[in-house]
């Protein structure tokens, strides 16, 4: 499966048809045995696209392995759909009821076309986690620029 071509290169392209295409693409890739960077080829359920706080971007993800094991390392692949920008992503886990996060700082690697690999994830305790995705990008303002930030939080029960 090719990483979705419209991700991050297309402004405000979102909605059910696109989502369906992506999920179907994942299933086709699973069926054909095609190996591509990322994890969708193993047929893991993919979280539906969810809007960021500003509604500028949409993010979905899948874990490898699935379901996420307790206290064992796992990876995720994120797809980000939205305005073209040189995005920097930070991913973290947080246990709101415990007031603490992960014992690790994961590494985010862009795979191109809006897809990101996140390595080093570890949810070391059972319970309710938040998968927190922070996005940052530079917005040029003529001869200056500002750093824009956005985020989306997924609830995950381990």
């Amino acid at each position, binding site marked *: 499966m090719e990483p979705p071509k419209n991700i991050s290169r297309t402004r405000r392209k979102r909605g059910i048809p696109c989502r369906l295409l992506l999920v179907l693409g994942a*299933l086709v890739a*699973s*069926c054909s045995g095609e190996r591509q960077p990322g994890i969708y080829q193993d*047929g893991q359920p993919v979280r539906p696209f969810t809007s960021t706080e500003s509604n500028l971007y949409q993010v979905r993800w899948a874990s490898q392995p699935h379901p996420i094991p*307790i*206290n064992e390392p796992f990876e995720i692949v994120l797809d980000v759909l939205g305005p073209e920008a040189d995005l920097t992503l930070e991913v973290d886990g947080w246990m709101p009821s*415990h*007031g*603490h996060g*992960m*014992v*690790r*700082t*994961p*590494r985010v690697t862009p795979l191109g076309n809006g897809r990101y690999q996140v*390595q*080093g994830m*570890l949810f*070391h*305790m*059972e*319970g309710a986690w938040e998968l927190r995705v922070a996005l940052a990008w530079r917005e040029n303002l003529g001869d200056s620029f500002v750093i824009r930030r956005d985020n989306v939080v997924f609830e995950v029960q381990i």
Partner: protein
Amino acid sequence: MRIVASLTVLAVAGGLASFGLRSESAGPQWQALRAQFSDQEWARLLRTADLPAPSDPTNKVFHDDAAFRLGRALFYEKRLSGNGELSCASCHDPARDWTDGKALAVGLEQVDKHTPSLWNSALNRWQFWDGRADSLWSQALQPIEHPKEMGGNREEVAELVLTDPDLRALYLEAFGPAPQELSATLTAERVFVQVGKALAAFEGRILTAATPFDQFVSGLQTGDPEDLAALDPLAIVGAKLFFGEAGCHLCHHGPLLSDMEFHDVELPREGAPEPARHAGVGRLLTDPFNGRGQHSDDVEAGRERLAYLNRTPHQRGEWKTPGLRNVARTAPYMHNGVYASLDEVLEHYSTLSDAPARSHTDAKRVLEAGQFDGSQLQALKAFLQSLSSPPPPSELLPPLDSDS
């Protein structure tokens, strides 16, 4: 369609596997137990099964028999210490479940930490209470040179191993001739590292055997009535509390009954929290004997171990969650030996009456007092006592010619 169907089959199979036996083929004893535990509690019970086999890619002699024999001799060797009177076994006594029975360890001087048991230490993700070592072999080196513990040094250790006839024979069998092309300093360091790796080959076999609780869990998986009867009713009540309402499982889960990570469990203290894991991470990353260093036998694996470590202020006051196998025989408890008995530990978690006041920076209280009544305390204690395994096998005891 075929893919969807396959996924469905996998999901169903996975569901059955996670809950063990098919209920229709189980006897009334199993049925009664199954009804006693919630789905979540049941799954947590089953997750304690199957202690994994330890491994360490950064130590290529970890599974080697010759290294084990050298490690066994070294473990009980008092000449590794500065005064010739202390061996690893002085604090990690096999007759005391690889600990010393003291609140705080005493080497050449008393130190400020309780001696942890070595049972299953090869399965720890991190070594020491603050996790400042990432392998058994790098851990084993630190007490030898610590001025308050054994007070030895690598040069004298290397000389002993290379010149004592018995140790030299064991060394040659495990590692072959000592490197000749290196300077004396580098040779000493290389041999010192090999001493650590041999000690790890020995300590890696200090693994608990099946306990009454394990037999019970096996019974949950197979329905075997004899296995199901291995746990007395009070301990079963304790297990239900432990894996359910009491929330002990949040940190104490899996085969080791530990998450292998670090927490502040609000032990009594004066003043600010100790640096604890915060300092441990710093020391680990700069340890010349860590898994990504020049003495590692698999630098890539060592790098991967350390790649994602974070160091945050919240780690102050956080100490490693100990495994609970053989916990009933390894008093006193906690990183500083503050509690003399299991009863005192359970009382702490029940009331948190001795917990320090929270500062404004960490006002969110993670732990909540369990408020256990007397019968619940007894049940939890009975469960913890069911985690006791048989004593160490003779191959782990001192060699017959040892004076340890």
